[in-house]
């Protein structure tokens, strides 16, 4: 099978494999608990960013309030696991489905709005959810709730963050595989048709409203799952983590990594987390840096980091082909 691939494809497969191997062997070099926690959180970010990218990159809509779905996923999962004794993994999934349901409900009236007004509606919805959480006293919004650790068949993953790190990698790989299946499926192609030209998609017999709502639901599902995972990973859930302004961070991850690409959110989330950590003590500089990053990426590198990497991959494949003298078999 490997021989059938073009050189360019081989280059990217090898690069992805190397990335995965590097990720798998990271704990060999550092078992520092904080660093492992740090990378586990990156996993949750990647899932959330992938969710947002399905909305932004694949279906061409936007939400500046995706934190609301993280909040729904997180709180539903925490309440179910703590109060009703639902096993944590199941409660995370239920939280994700709850977020998807909320996303679909929001999308039913909002998917018909034009871009600018979709932005407004998502901001308003997210602010509303945040205010609502602050009003509900049983969520203890200001001091936070304790959450149960993630357990698989009685084995506590939170006991050592190396376990959660591998769990993060597992989740990310599953999500990315599902995402690439979605891209190739009928739904994925329909979403991209809607993105590229709403009217012609409508003319081709694609039910635009239904697919837009579906994109919202899928996106909210992943974000809800990420929210639930984060809540159980960090051990507490507090309303401050769900302010609407934080939605901007997820947008940065997607834009920085590269819109509508499989690896974009992975790269974007990782770099975002590193910048965040480097500038942790300088909030003002962090804010300025993100602003400049967005301006630079949108204005000058519209494809984000992934497009830069693609160029490198093209050149590499070209060099390899040139040495063999086969003549460029560029896709």
């Amino acid at each position: 099978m490997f021989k059938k691939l073009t050189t360019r494809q081989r280059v990217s497969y090898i690069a992805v494999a190397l990335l995965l191997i590097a990720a798998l062997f990271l704990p060999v070099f550092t078992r520092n608990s904080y660093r492992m926690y740090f990378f586990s959180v990156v996993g949750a970010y990647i899932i959330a960013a992938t969710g947002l990218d399905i909305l932004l990159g694949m279906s061409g809509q936007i939400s500046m309030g995706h934190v609301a779905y993280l909040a729904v996923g997180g709180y539903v999962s925490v309440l179910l696991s703590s109060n009703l004794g639902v096993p944590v993994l199941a409660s995370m999934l239920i939280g994700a489905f709850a977020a998807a349901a909320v996303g679909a409900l929001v999308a039913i009236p909002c998917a018909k709005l034009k871009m600018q007004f979709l932005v407004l509606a998502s901001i308003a919805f997210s602010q509303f959810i945040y205010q609502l959480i602050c009003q509900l006293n049983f969520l203890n919004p200001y001091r936070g709730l304790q959450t149960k650790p993630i357990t698989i068949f009685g084995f506590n993953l939170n006991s050592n963050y190396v376990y959660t790190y591998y769990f993060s990698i597992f989740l990310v790989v599953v999500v990315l595989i599902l995402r690439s299946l979605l891209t190739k499926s009928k739904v994925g192609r329909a979403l991209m048709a809607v993105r590229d030209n709403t009217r012609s998609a409508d003319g081709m017999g694609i039910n635009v409203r239904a697919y837009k709502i579906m994109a919202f639901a899928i996106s909210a599902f992943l974000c809800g799952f990420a929210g639930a995972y984060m809540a159980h990973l960090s051990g507490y859930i507090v309303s401050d983590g769900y302010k609407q302004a934080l939605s901007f961070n997820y947008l940065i991850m997607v834009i920085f990594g590269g819109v509508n690409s499989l690896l974009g959110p992975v790269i974007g989330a990782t770099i975002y987390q590193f910048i965040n950590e480097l500038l942790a003590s300088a909030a003002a500089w962090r804010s300025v840096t993100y602003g400049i990053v967005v301006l630079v990426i949108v204005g000058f590198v519209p494809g984000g980091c992934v497009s830069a990497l693609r160029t490198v991959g093209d050149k590499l494949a070209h060099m390899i082909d040139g040495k063999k003298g086969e003549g460029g078999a560029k896709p």
Partner: protein
Amino acid sequence: MLLSVIIAGLIMGAIYGMVGLGYSIIFRASGIMNLAQGEMITLSAFLGVTFYEVLGLPYPIALALTLIIMFGHGAFIQMGVISQFSKRGVSGVYMILITLGLSRIMNGGCELIWGSSPRGFPSIFSVTTINIFGAFVTPERLMCFFLSAAGMLVIHLFLTRTKTGIGTRASAMDSTAAEACGIDVVKSNAIVWGIACTVAAMSGMMLGPIYSVSLTLGANMSVKGMASSVSGGFGNIYGAMVGGLLLGLVESLVGGYVDATMRDMIAYLMLFLILCVRPAGLFNEQSVRDV
């Protein structure tokens, strides 16, 4: 009770309308939803507090200076940033993201210059309260109401009576046709952004004495502004004002009779519901719907 609630609501509503006006002017002129509008309020409030308190200038001069500087700031943002990006083919969502990036830069910049702790804006008048038909109002709030009304009138006169104002309206309607008629579209866009920034500066200078000047001032106000301009019909300049008054009244009534902590939630819920039910707003502004 009812009277004082209504008066408080109208006064806040006038300010909300002013904030919403900034969004509507820019959207009308260039179809851009400017998410940096809130941070412009923050910036001008900080500028105002610097002029008024630190440099000790009288309030009218501090106000005038802030307005002039913010006009220049707005024109610079349009000419130096927005038009450069639109030349590169940035549009739609990505233009919104550009304004979002600008808002982050401005917010961070304010924090770097003035620090993160909120500043009190010293009161402007020596009288503490004024009695209007039995309702007590601080003179600062009353001034806000009249300043908003005056600002609204000036903008209305500018847009309908002056040659430059009519030119900006023409280029907002159809920039190609306006250019063919000899209107400098670049200049009129810069003027529009300048006006929007000046409006933000006015609301910043009015909000400063009411709330304290802090980094979150603009972010809190921006949603109120969005809500008021959407409820009046986004892009409709007069609609923004009516929407603002409506929002102010609703908020004030909820705060007075239901629960003061639910005031903010109402603004967001109102914005969301109006977008769901009647996205074109009260005055049925077209340009909102997609397929």
